[in-house]
Structures are given as C-alpha cells and as structure tokens.
C-alpha cells in the first residue's frame, strides 16, 4: 500500500501546524466562526448536534494494521472508545473537543494519515472498491490512479472553494463495486485492444434531494491525460456552477441544465487548451505510484484447501458465515474476508477501539497487515489464506464481528441520522435496527442478496436512492416518517429507485419492508435477485403489497 515519502509527510505535518494556528486564532476570537468554518471543514471538522465531529480520510479505503491501531488509540484518547466508518470509506469520531483537534491531526500525521478535504466545497476523498488489487475480475488496480488523483487534488489552490463538494470514484473491474455512477466524476478504467489503459469519464452524478446518475462525457481518454481532463471539468464547474442556492450547486445541476452535450463541449474546449502541458502524467510517475501497490508475496497453493473444506462441513455456523463473508481472490488458495459491522450485535459502521485492534491483529497475523473499508460500511481483510479462515472467524466471534449477514437484509447501509447529525431530519440507527430485527436469519437467507439503505435526511449519506430498497427519514409535524423507494441499484447498470407511495411511521416501517420482500419472494423466478424481479415485474406489485395488512 501507499507509504508516505518525505514530501507527503512534510505537507501533512505543515498542514497540522497551520491548523493548530487557525484553531488558536479561533479560540482567541481573532478568527470569526464564519471565517473559520471552511478552514475547519477542509480539515475534517464538523460541528454536530452534541459536539465536534472529525472525519478522517482513509484514501480509497486502504488501511495498514498500524493505522487501524492509531485510529483505535484516537477513539480511546479523544472520543468515547469507538469510531464510525462511512459510506465514503472514511472514519468519523463523534465526540471531539475543538482544542484537541490539532493533536488528533498530529497523531494522524504520525501514522501517515490526515483529514484534509474530507469536508468543504472541494475535491473529497477519492474512493474505489474494497477489493481493489485482489478481485479476480479486475483489469488494473484502481488505487494507483486514486492515489495519483488524491495527490493532484490535495490543496490544489484553484479548486478549494468550488460551488459545492466534489466526489470522484474509480473502478477498474467488470463489476462496479464502488458506486461510480453516483459520483460527480466517475471513472471506469479499462484496457483497449492494444492493452493501453484508458478511461471512460462520467460526470454529474450525485444523490441528495435531486438524484442523478452521472453521464458519459469522455470516452477513450488516455491514462496520461486523466488529470488534465479532471482539471478541465473542475474549471468549468468552478466558473459556471451555481452559487446562489446550496441545493443547486452540485455539478449534476450544471450538467443537467446545460445538457450533457453542451457540458461536454465546454469541458472539451477547456481541455484542448491545457492538454499536453504540465498536467500530463508520465510513465515514471505511474510506475512510481504503481510500485507502492505491488501484491504481497503470495504462496503457490491449490485452490482447494482441505482444512477449510473440513471446517465448512463440520461447523454449520462457520459455514453460514463463510457463505456470506468469504469473497473470491485472484490468487489460488486465498480469499478476501468481509467483516460485517451491522445489526444485531453492532451499529452500522461503528466499531469499538477493541474491535479495531482485533482487526489490526488479525491483519498482522493472517493478512499481510492490510485492511480495507468498504463503502457498505463494512471492513475487509483482503488477503487471507483459505487455511486460516477458520481461525479468523473464531477470533472475530470473540469480538462480535462474525455476523453471517454480509449482503443480506440486516447488512443495511445506514447513516448516523438524528442521533448525531445536525442535518438529519429523522433517526436512522434505532429504526434500521427494528427493520433488521423483523427478519430471522433463515428469512434473510431466503431473500438473499439485497441492499437496503436508510438515510436520515434528504442529503442521502446512506445512498438510499441506489438501494434495492431505499428508506428516507422525514419529519412530519415533529414525528419521524420514512419514505420508501424501490428499484435502486448500484454497479454499471445503476438505477435511481422510485418512490412507492406515502411515507410510513416508524412503527409500521418494518412490516412494510417485509411486505416488499415478501412480494419479491412470491414473484421471483428461480435465482432471480430482488432487482431482477423488480426489472421484470415493475413497481406496481410491490406498491400494492407494501401497504397491505402487516404494514398499513
């Protein structure tokens, strides 16, 4: 994984000292809150309902075991012993004192981490999928370009006061597991007939109150020109994006008001002016960054491991976990392990310091010391020998992290909601828990792979629009209500879900969701997923079923 050199380290250290000075000036009153606001946001610091929250960047979701231990230490020392992993592969600490923040950032810097641009109207953490580098269907490791883009965007002086936040995601595999289509810029990296790396660039995605999937703006873009093209898009956005209304300021609004072809012309005209100049990437730089993402030294093994097979047949609990958590790996004899952070034993995305430490230990013992954060708020140990899977499971059991529910109903993606967040209009965690608890494990297995996403407000941090079942918390005369969408999907054929009807109260929500999954069970053909059934039969049967006896 990427290790800082003296330049990265100097930048991060100087940034800590710069912010230390800014915090001191805020505390002394020299800086007004209005002046301080964008400075603190661009250093990851939000003011939430009860306290400051710090969002720490985990670039493209990759962590070393030492970094994970560092996060655990921060959770213990500066927070209440836990942290929240987010849908953008970051981690948030919820109970932070302003005066502590420079020291937290200094601690982060000491483990090659930072909180730069995790908030504010700038380019945010560049994300990719949790299985980058190990997925069998991968064409090229997307982390390499994610890191190159991260560096380019970090404290890039022209683009720190954009009309609104700007999110970039990269995927380079047959299946898109990075939700690329809902990003401001989505990048699909592929090899052409001559094996040359090229990008398909999509622009204008974003959820929130006006959800849009991004649209193709540039195809066949040579890899060396990706930075100049992103620069062109950002300059067009910075100059012409709306600034009069926060809710119309994302690039998706600009793209859709101009139309994609007019936007493409603008971006192209700008790009023609700058391409081939200073922003052209070099082979040297690509290989320098790529050399930081070399695979570990894998053993040469058979794909079948007898011990693993034995445990699968003799221990049904282990087998049940493995059927959900063990993911394919490009190297024979290895697997990736998805660790569910979800209900009933956990709160989505939340891990205690002890759990973080355990995962770090497991990564060291069995997995080359590397960990990934998935945008589904789960964690991944990407490189585990099949023969070690049983030991990993046993150890995860001890800290309540061996839930056999990855990809099932109770593996819901849930934002923190009104329990913490200033923006939230409704509670998320307690309601999501009730939905999850309405299903036994057998019922969940019967439903099979499904994504249920619950956001506590229209800002859609839990990406409810692209959940197979999306749930949006609203507030109606002081009471929490939940609006349901169906038919959302992520991946290359992403879709925005459709609202099924009136929002429902917290009490009936679990029943309504269950009515919907029952309608799927009643209508599905063999091996059809929820989304496939939806595509075949449409919204109507679900709509009818949803408000039936159990729900209404």
């Amino acid at each position, binding site marked *: 994984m990427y290790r800082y*050199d003296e*330049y*990265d380290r*100097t*930048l991060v250290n*100087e*940034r800590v000292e*710069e912010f230390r000075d*800014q915090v001191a000036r805020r505390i002394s009153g020299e*800086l007004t809150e209005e*002046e301080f606001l*964008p*400075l603190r946001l661009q250093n990851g610091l939000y003011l939430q309902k009860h306290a400051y929250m710090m969002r720490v960047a985990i670039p493209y979701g990759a962590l070393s075991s030492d970094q994970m231990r560092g996060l655990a230490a921060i959770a213990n020392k500066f927070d209440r012993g836990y942290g929240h992993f987010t849908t953008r592969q970051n981690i948030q600490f919820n109970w932070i004192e302003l005066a502590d923040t420079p020291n937290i950032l200094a601690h982060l810097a000491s483990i090659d981490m930072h909180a730069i641009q995790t908030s504010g*109207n700038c380019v945010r953490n560049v994300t990719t999928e949790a299985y980058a580098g190990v997925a069998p269907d991968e064409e090229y490791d997307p982390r390499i370009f994610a890191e190159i883009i991260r*560096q*380019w*965007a*970090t*404290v*890039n*002086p*022209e*683009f*720190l*006061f*954009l009309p609104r936040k700007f999110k970039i995601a990269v995927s380079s595999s047959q299946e898109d597991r990075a939700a690329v289509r809902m990003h401001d810029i989505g990048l699909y990296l592929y090899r052409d007939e001559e094996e040359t790396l090229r990008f398909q660039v999509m622009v204008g995605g974003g959820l929130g109150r006006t959800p849009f999937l991004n649209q193709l703006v540039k195809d066949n873009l040579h890899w060396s020109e990706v930075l100049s093209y992103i620069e062109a898009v950002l*300059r067009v956005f*910075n*100059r012409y994006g709306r*600034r009069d209304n926060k809710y119309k300021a994302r690039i998706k609004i600009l793209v859709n008001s101009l139309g994609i072809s007019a936007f493409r012309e603008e971006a192209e005209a700008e790009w023609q*002016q700058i391409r081939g100049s*200073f*922003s052209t990437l*070099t082979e*040297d*730089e690509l290989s*320098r960054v790529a050399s930081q993402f070399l695979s570990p030294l894998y053993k040469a093994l058979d794909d079948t491991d007898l011990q693993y097979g034995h445990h699968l047949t003799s221990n049904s609990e282990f087998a049940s976990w493995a059927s959900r958590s063990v993911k394919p790996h490009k190297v024979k004899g290895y697997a990736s392990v998805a660790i569910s952070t979800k209900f009933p034993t956990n709160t989505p995305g939340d891990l205690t310091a002890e759990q973080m430490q355990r995962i770090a230990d497991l990564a060291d013992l069995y997995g080359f010391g590397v960990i990934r954060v998935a945008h589904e708020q789960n964690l991944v140990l990407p490189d585990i020998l099949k023969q070690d899977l049983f030991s990993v499971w046993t150890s995860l059991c001890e800290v309540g992290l061996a839930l056999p529910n990855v990809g099932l109903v109770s593996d819901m993606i849930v934002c923190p909601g009104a329990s913490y967040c200033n923006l939230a209009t409704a509670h998320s965690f307690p309601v999501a828990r009730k939905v999850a608890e309405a299903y036994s494990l057998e019922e969940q297995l019967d439903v099979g792979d499904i994504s249920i996403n619950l956001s506590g407000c229209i800002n859609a941090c839990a990406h409810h629009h692209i959940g197979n079942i999306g749930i949006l918390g609203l507030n109606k005369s002081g009471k929490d209500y939940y609006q349901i969408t169906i038919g959302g999907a992520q991946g290359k054929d992403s879709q925005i879900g459709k609202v099924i009807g009136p929002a429902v109260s917290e009490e009936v929500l679990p029943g309504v969701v269950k009515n919907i999954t029952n309608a799927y069970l009643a209508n599905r053909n063999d091996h059809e997923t929820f989304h496939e059934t939806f595509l075949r039969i449409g919204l109507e049967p679900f709509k009818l079923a949803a408000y039936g006896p159990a729900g209404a």
Partner: protein
Amino acid sequence: MKNIIRIHSGDAAVIKSDDWVIAEDVHDTPDPHDVFPMAVWLARVEQGEEVTPAVWIGVNDDPMELQSVIDKLSFIGVFFEDFKDGRGYSTAYLLRKRLNYQGDLRAFGDVLRDQLSLMRQCGFDSFAIKEGKDPYDAMKGLKGLSVTYSSSVSQPNPLYKRVRR
C-alpha cells in the same frame, strides 16, 4: 486602494495605500488611476474613448472577454465578494495562463490571511486585505505549505516533475 500587500521579486511588503481607485462607473472627476468595471471599460474601448490601463473583474464577469485588449492593461483587480466564492482563483489562472497577462493582478474585497497563499499560487501578486484586518498579520498567510502536489500558476510543474521522489 488601502491595506495592501504587494509581492515584488519574491518579497512581500505592506503598502498602506496606493493610487488605484476602484470606481463603479465613469464619473465627473476622472483620475488616471481609475479602475473601472470590466464591462464599463470594454464599452469605452469599443467607443474609442481614452481609458486607464486598469479594470476590475466582478464575480460574474468572464475574463476571457479581455483577450483582444489585454495588452492595454497593466492593472487588473479581481473582486472577491465572499471569500468562500472561488471563481476568482480560476479568473486569475485564466488571466495569467490563457491570456498571458503580465501586469499587476490584485485580489480585493473579502480577502483574508488564510487564503493568501492559494491566491498567490493562482497568480495574484498583490492583495488589498479586507478593511479592518491587519495587513501585517495577513502577510503570515502568504507562506502556505512548502510542498504542493499539483501544478499552479506560480509553480507550473507538478511535484513529480520537479523533484525525484
């Protein structure tokens, strides 16, 4: 204008005030240091009237409209209505890189210490610090971080082309 920090040959100095006067429109007492809004100035050029070599660019103005007349200018002010509005950074970039403007480029309006190094990197070489703020204090903001990754007006080569990493 007042409360100015000016960079000259790499060194920054505070100038309490200089002769440039930001004007909203033509007025009865013309001054050779009048800085007119871009649209007013362009209209005068078009009508063949004599103009000062100075304009200011508002947040909604397109600096590319100065392309054919850029040689007539030796002072351009870029107005920051709100420091959180980043259009001025792209304006400066375009003036310096696209129009190859070599004259004075001044940020004025909501211009604050913590953005000065970013402005400098985008090609500004003087700053009229917001009224009520101490320019000597603001000067500390010029330094910024010693490491920058991307290319910028002041440092056209990105880090990976400048140093051996």
